[in-house]
């Protein structure tokens, strides 16, 4: 197993290099100038000043030189300074990481805790009205865009019923203690963000349990007269949940992407909003650091998923 993990880690290195190179090319060779984005169009600026600014930021260097310098520094853990805010990019990411983690982890919890049980129930009552309704609901869940769901949620719960705040992470002045206030603000965005995952986990849980119930060992268990409850708890459920590890693992990185839109709508001070702001500002070092970190997250999530999978299912043996 450890050999397998090492091999995967070694394989990840060229992939990461490839990703940084392609990202760097996309960002630097695309039209749009961070210097122009930086200056106030209303305030006149001397042409020489622009050149000085460009030189300070190292943007006068040829593309490949800039990439090598960036790579050299990044490998030493220095991700650079924000063009716009003149602070280390990692500092800004650290400030935003907390809110994003709160949002994504709770949305994941909502989708797992609601989606999987509903899927299992749906499988146990296959072809019932409930199964049909849940299946329909799951399809709707993966088809409704989360930004529309967000607008509808704000309309119903914040504007009409007035029981949840329409945006923000905490109130400026609140009678509630901090944690409760945070949860109050969290409920709507986390549910909206988790909705699509909830729907697809439900589908996968249903299919998975149905497949397991069709296996010979379940038939055997039934034939020797075991109670349905015992068949489920001992033989079926655990095996049915194993494939869900993969589904869940593959979805983790996507949550960060989804949170870009949700954080923008709900004005949530997280990584997603930082990404949108840095893209608008053409803040190259900030964007590069965000892209690199999300790429590492994707690769790590894939690897961890595969390892977990091997632990959960002893039949899986990775080639050494």
């Amino acid at each position, binding site marked *: 197993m450890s050999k397998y993990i090492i091999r995967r880690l070694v394989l990840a290195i060229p992939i990461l290099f490839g990703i940084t190179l392609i990202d760097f090319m*996309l960002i630097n060779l695309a039209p749009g100038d961070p210097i122009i984005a930086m200056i106030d169009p209303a305030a006149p600026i001397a042409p020489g000043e622009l050149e000085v600014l460009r030189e300070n930021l190292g943007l006068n260097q040829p593309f490949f030189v800039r990439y090598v310098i960036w790579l050299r520094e990044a490998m030493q853990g220095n991700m650079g300074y924000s063009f716009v805010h003149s602070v280390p990019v990692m500092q800004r990411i650290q400030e935003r990481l907390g809110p994003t983690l709160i949002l994504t982890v709770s949305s994941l919890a909502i989708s797992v805790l609601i989606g999987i049980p509903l899927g299992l129930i749906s499988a146990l009552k296959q072809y019932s009205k409930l199964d049909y309704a849940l299946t329909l609901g799951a399809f709707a869940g993966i088809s409704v865009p989360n930004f529309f769901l967000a607008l509808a949620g704000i309309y119903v719960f914040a504007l009409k019923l007035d029981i949840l705040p329409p945006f923000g992470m905490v109130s400026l002045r609140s009678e509630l203690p901090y944690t409760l206030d945070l949860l109050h603000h969290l409920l709507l965005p986390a549910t909206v963000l988790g909705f699509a995952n909830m729907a697809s986990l439900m589908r996968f849980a249903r299919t998975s349990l149905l497949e397991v119930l069709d296996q010979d060992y379940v038939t055997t268990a039934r034939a020797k007269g075991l109670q349905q409850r015992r068949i489920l708890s001992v033989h079926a459920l655990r095996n049915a949940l194993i494939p869900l590890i993969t589904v869940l693992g593959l979805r983790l990185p996507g949550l960060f992407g989804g949170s870009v839109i949700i954080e923008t709508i709900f004005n949530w001070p997280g990584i997603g909003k930082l990404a949108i702001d840095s893209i608008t500002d053409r803040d190259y070092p900030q964007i590069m650091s965000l892209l690199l970190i999300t790429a590492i997250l994707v690769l790590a999530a894939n690897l961890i998923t595969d390892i977990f999978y091997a632990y959960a299912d002893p039949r899986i043996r990775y080639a050494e």
Partner: protein
Amino acid sequence: MRDEHKGLGSSPKSLDGEVEGGRFFQSRFWRRYRRHRLALLGAAALFILVGIAVFAPLITSHDPLRVNMRDTKEPPNEVYVLGTDKAGRDMWARLAYASRISLSVGVVSVSIYIVIGTILGAIAGYYGGFTDSLIMRFTDTVMSFPGLIIIITVVSFVGPSIYNAMLVIGLLGWPGTCRLVRGQVLQLREMEFIEAARSMGTPAPRIILRHILPNVVPYLIVVATLGTASAILIEAGLSFLGLGVQPPTPSWGNMLNSARQLTLLEQFPHLWLPPGFMIAITVLSINFIGDGLRDALDPRMSL
């Protein structure tokens, strides 16, 4: 839908050899598809949506781009069936014309990535060895790009427009297809009929095109259908963020975006409910169709 049926009918290999030109409605494929009621419903809904897109000028009576500042934010009435937007433009006309955008973005971007994925996957799977590892490492790299974030970055940098959205979704979407095709080709390559073709001296490109790929077609159809649904969602998301179709050209995403202010949201639901429903219905019916196609083409397919 009709085109898809025709396409299926003309490639008998993919469907147990039963389907032939005029006898589509007796085919095993159709019998299986018909049992899937939601898939039938989806096909009907998509048929209507395509109709709306194609005949948009005939079924609307107002210009979707004409600003009329005397009739802004009108609720639905006799003159404007679904009311008017902030600039007094007819909501129904904008919705109808926007369906052209969504459907074409879905079809074009998915066509791009199906072609790239199939070519690369077939080459990797058939030739194996160094070619295979080279292509698969490249696939892994593209697959590790952080989905929506990279799409947003690229589209914003190359300039937000419908064509760039199509291109970026297409150029970043192929790794899944590539892996699927490669896996299938790896299996098929070892089969006896391929060995027979090879021993008769059939050149490799011909073996791939004539003998291997037809057997992958059912998988591609399902992948393309489900892919179209998600491409439409991505385009709507981009337009919602202001990075896709640019106003005044209507798209469901940018219509939702322009109704985002809380006051508009609260007082004029007719500004944001219809475009949201249109996205949901379109994506939902395409997903239903994909599900039905999967069951009808090969129930054991696990996609």
